[in-house]
C-alpha cells in the first residue's frame, strides 16, 4: 500500500552521522595519505552526499517505486514503445555468474560461452531481418540509426559518390531526422499524405543523386503496413540510394515478412521493445543493426566471429569505428536472446499475429468514440484521433490520457505522429488479455460522457495532477539545493 507521506528527497531525509555502507578496515600497511596523493589533487572533504541509514534508503526507493505505473502493475498501451510483459526468468538468467560478472577485457578463453550466445544472437537477428550482417554494439534504437547512417556515408564515400541527403516521411520518429543531422546529412521531410502512407509521387520528386538514404518505419507510425514498400524500395535503389528500416514496429511482422525481403538495406532492432528488454524506466535499451552483406564490412567492431578454435572478436575490414566503449549493452542483448530461444519461430510469429489481433480488436471497440485516423485495419498498433471529442465535448487527447490514469490505465502515446491532429496512439501488445482490452475500452467510453470539468482536471486519484511544465522550463530547477 502506498505511503502517501513518503516523497521527501534523500537530501531532506539526511541526518549528519547516519551511515548505511561501512567498508572493512584496510589490510595493507598504512601509509599517510600525503605520501600517496599530493594535497594539490585532494578535496578538503568528500562531496556533500546525503547521510542515511540502510533502512532509510530501502524505504525511500520502495515508496518511490509505488508512485509509478509499470507493465508489472498496469496496462501500458504506450504506442510505438511495445510495452509487453517482461519475463521474470530473464532477470534471473541475466544475473547468472558467468554472465553478469564478466569484465569486458577478460581473456577470450574465459568468455567462450558468452561469445557463443552473442554469435547466435547475431545470426538470429540477421535471419529475422533478412539482412545477414549484424552489429550488436549500438546502445539503443537512435544509436543504431546513427550507426547505420554512418555506414551508409562510408559506403558512398568508397563509391566516390557525394550523397548528402537523408529523406523521411513526416510521420517519422523524431530520432530519424535527429540521427541524420548528427551523422552530417541534410534532412528532407516528405509532405504529409492524406492517407497516412508515404506519398510516392512526392518521394519520386526528391529522389536524385544527392539522396543517400530513405528512412522509413514499416509498419509506419500510423500502424499501417506500407502497401507500396516494394515499389518505394525499387525507386530508392534506382536512384542509387539505400533504404533504412526503423525497426521500432518489428513487433508486427516477426516471421511474416522481413525488412530485407521488402527492400530494406539496413535496419535497427529495439531489443527493449520487440524482444522485451525490459524498458528500465527509460532505458537501457539495445539497438543492434542488421545490414546487407556488402555493407557488413563497414559495421562497427567488435563483432563475434567463429572459427575452428572457437569464438573470437573481429573488426570488419572497413569499419566506421566504434560508437561506444566495449561490446554493447550485453545485459539487454542477453534478455533478447533468452526471449528468442524461448519462443522459437512459431512463437515469434504468434507474437505478431496476436499483437495485430489485439490492436484491431481494441481499435474496433473504440471506433465509435475514437475513430482511427486512417479508417483502415491496423497492424500491431493504431492511431486514433480525439478531434471530434475535442470539438464536441472540449476533451483533448491529453485530457483523455490524464483521465485514463484515474481508471488505472497508463495513457497511450498522445500527439504523435505529428501528422494526425489530437493523435492517440495505442499499442496494446500481444501480452494483454481480451478482458483487459475490453476494460480499457469501457473506461474510454465512460470518460467521453463524463462532465468536461472533471476530465480537464484529471487525474484526481494520483499523487500529483497536471504539473506546471511552463514554470519548470522558465526557471529550470534541476537539482536539490538547501533552501
Amino acid at each position, binding site marked *: 500500500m502506498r505511503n502517501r507521506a513518503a516523497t521527501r528527497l534523500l537530501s531532506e531525509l539526511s541526518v549528519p552521522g547516519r551511515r548505511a555502507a561501512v567498508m572493512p578496515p584496510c589490510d595493507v600497511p598504512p601509509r599517510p595519505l600525503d605520501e600517496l596523493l599530493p594535497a594539490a589533487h585532494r578535496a578538503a572533504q568528500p562531496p556533500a552526499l546525503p547521510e542515511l541509514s540502510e533502512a532509510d534508503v530501502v524505504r525511500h526507493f520502495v515508496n518511490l517505486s509505488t508512485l509509478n505505473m509499470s507493465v508489472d502493475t498496469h496496462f501500458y498501451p504506450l504506442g510505438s514503445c511495445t510495452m509487453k510483459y517482461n519475463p521474470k526468468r530473464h532477470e534471473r538468467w541475466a544475473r547468472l555468474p558467468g554472465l*553478469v560478472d564478466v569484465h569486458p577485457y577478460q581473456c577470450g578463453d574465459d568468455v567462450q560461452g558468452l561469445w557463443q550466445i552473442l554469435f547466435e544472437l547475431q545470426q*538470429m537477428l540477421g535471419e529475422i531481418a533478412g539482412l545477414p550482417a549484424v552489429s550488436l554494439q549500438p546502445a539503443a534504437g537512435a544509436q543504431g540509426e546513427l550507426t547505420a547512417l*554512418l555506414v551508409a556515408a562510408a559506403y558512398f564515400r568508397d563509391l566516390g559518390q557525394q550523397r548528402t541527403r537523408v529523406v523521411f516521411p513526416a510521420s517519422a520518429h523524431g530520432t530519424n531526422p535527429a540521427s541524420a543531422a548528427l551523422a552530417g546529412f541534410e534532412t528532407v521531410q516528405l509532405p504529409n499524405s492524406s492517407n497516412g502512407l508515404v506519398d510516392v509521387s512526392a518521394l519520386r520528386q526528391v529522389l536524385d543523386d544527392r539522396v543517400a538514404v530513405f528512412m522509413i518505419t514499416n509498419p509506419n507510425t500510423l500502424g499501417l503496413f506500407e502497401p507500396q514498400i516494394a515499389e518505394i524500395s525499387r525507386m530508392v535503389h534506382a536512384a542509387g540510394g539505400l533504404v533504412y528500416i526503423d525497426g521500432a514496429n518489428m513487433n508486427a511482422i516477426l516471421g511474416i515478412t522481413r525488412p530485407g525481403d521488402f527492400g530494406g538495406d539496413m535496419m535497427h532492432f529495439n531489443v527493449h521493445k520487440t524482444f522485451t528488454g525490459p524498458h528500465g524506466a527509460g532505458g537501457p535499451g539495445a539497438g543492434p543493426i542488421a545490414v546487407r552483406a556488402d555493407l557488413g564490412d563497414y559495421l562497427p567492431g567488435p563483432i563475434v566471429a567463429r572459427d575452428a578454435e572457437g569464438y573470437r572478436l573481429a573488426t570488419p575490414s572497413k569499419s566506421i569505428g566504434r560508437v*561506444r566503449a566495449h561490446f554493447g549493452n550485453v545485459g539487454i542483448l542477453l534478455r533478447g536472446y533468452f526471449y528468442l530461444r524461448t519462443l*522459437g519461430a512459431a512463437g515469434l510469429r504468434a507474437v505478431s499475429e496476436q499483437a495485430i489481433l489485439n490492436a484491431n480488436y481494441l481499435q474496433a471497440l473504440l471506433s465509435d468514440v475514437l475513430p482511427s485516423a486512417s479508417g483502415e485495419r491496423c497492424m500491431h498498433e493504431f492511431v486514433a484521433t480525439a478531434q471530434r471529442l475535442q470539438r464536441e465535448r472540449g476533451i483533448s487527447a491529453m485530457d483523455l490520457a490524464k483521465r485514463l490514469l484515474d481508471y488505472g490505465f497508463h495513457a497511450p502515446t498522445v500527439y504523435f505522429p505529428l501528422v494526425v491532429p489530437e493523435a492517440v496512439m495505442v499499442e496494446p501488445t500481444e501480452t494483454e488479455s481480451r478482458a483487459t482490452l475490453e476494460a480499457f475500452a469501457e473506461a474510454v467510453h465512460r470518460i467521453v460522457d463524463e462532465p468536461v470539468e472533471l476530465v480537464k482536471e484529471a487525474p484526481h486519484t494520483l499523487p500529483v495532477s497536471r504539473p506546471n511544465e511552463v514554470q519548470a522550463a522558465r526557471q529550470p530547477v534541476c537539482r536539490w539545493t538547501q533552501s
Partner: protein
Amino acid sequence: MTYLFNTPDDERAMLARIGATSIEDLLAPIPADLRLDRPLRLPPPLTELELEAELRQLASRNAGVSRRTCFLGGGAYDHFIPSVVDEIAARGEFYTAYTPYQAEASQGSLQAFFEYQSLICELTGLDVANASLYDGASAVAEAVLMAERATERAGRVIVSAGVHPEAVQTLKTYLARWGARVVTAPLRDGITDLDFVRGQVDAQTLAVVVQQPNFLGCLEDVSACSGLAHSQGALSIAVFDPLSLGLLKRPGDCGVDIAVAEGQSLGIPLQYGGPYLGVLACRMEFVRKMPGRLIGQTVDRRGQRCFVLNLQTREQHIRREKATSNICTNQGLLALRATAYLALMGPHGLREVAELCCRKAHYAAEQLAAVAGLERLARQPFFKEFAVRCPQGVERALVAARRAGLDVGPQLARFPRLTGIPAADQEQGLLVAVTECRSKAEIDRLAEALRP
C-alpha cells in the same frame, strides 16, 4: 503459447467484432509476394526448465570475477555492489516502466532521476546533470558536440592521449562527417603535455578534453588544462572516475565546464561492458545546450512539489533535426542504481571506498616493483590504477597471472597507438587496477605470480 492470453474462443469473438474472418485476413495489408514463405530458421523453443539448464551450462563456460580474481581496469572495475542496489533495481515498478512521459504516472522515476541529477551535481561540483547517456565513451562525444553548440566555434577539439582510447575512437566516429578535427595532445611522462596544448589552443578551439585519472591511471593537472582552454575562450571538458571523488578534487572545482564519466563504478555490474551509465554535468549557463533527458522540479495544479521532463524542446521528439542530440532511450535503470549506491555510501562511505582503492593500489604498485620487478610506466601520482612495463614480455606475465587465477590488464598493445608513450612501453605495458574488493593476500599472490 508462452506469454500469450487469447484462447481460440477469444480469438473467434474478437475476429467477429473486427469483422475479419481469420488472423490471415488481418495480415492482408502485407502483400503476398513480400511474405516469408517458410518459418524463420531459429532454434526450437525451450521451456523455462530446459533453457535454464542450457544457460547454466553456457554461463559455466565463462569465468567472471566471482570465479577469478580481478585486477582488470581500463574503464570497468570490480567494485563492491551493496545488496540494496540490486534489490531496488529489481522493483518491477521501476524496471518495467518506460520514459516518464506521463508525469502523474511516473513520479517514482522522475523523483529518482531528479535525485540522481542532484547527487551528480554534488559529486562533480557542477550546477546541472542530465538524466543519463549511453556510456562514458559516447558521453565524451556528446560533450564535444555540446561544446560546439555552446561556443558556436567551428575549430578543433584538443583531446589528450590520456583519454580512454575507445572513447577517442567513439568521438572520432561521431565527428566523422565533419572531417578530422580532433587534435591529439601527446602524453609526456604519463600525463598530458601542457606545452603542446598551450601551443595548439587558439581562438577557434572549441574544447580541451582530459581524463582524470587518465587512461594510464596518472593524475592530470585538470585546473591547468581548464586554464589553457579558458585563455582562448574554449571549454574545459574532463572525463572523471566518480568513485575517485571520494578523495580527489571535483571537476567543478578545477574549472571544468562539462564533466563526463563512465558511471559503472557506481553500483553497476560488469556484464561484459554494458549496460553502463554515461554521466554528463555542466555549468548552468549551458543547460539549454545539453543532450538527453533532464528532470525538473515544478508544482502541480494543487501547488504540490512534483517533477517533470524538463526543457523537452531540446529533444528529438519535438525539435527533430535541430535537437541537441538524437538520444531517446537512455540508461535510466543504471542512473537509479547509481543513485541508490551514492545514497548508501554517503560522504563517508565514498571516502572510505576511495581510500581503500588508493591504499591497496599503492601497495600493489610497491609489491609489483619490489617482488616482480615491474616498474611503473610513469612516475606520476595515481589513484586506483597504474600501468607497468613487463620487460620479460607482457604475454608471459598474463599467462603467469592467469595460471594463478588472476586477471590483470588490459594490455596497452590492444589499443591504437597512445601518442607520447614510447612504442616499446605500449608493446610491453599492462594496466593494473586495484579496487576495495582486493585483499592484501590477493595482491601478494599477484606480485608472486609475476615474479620473473
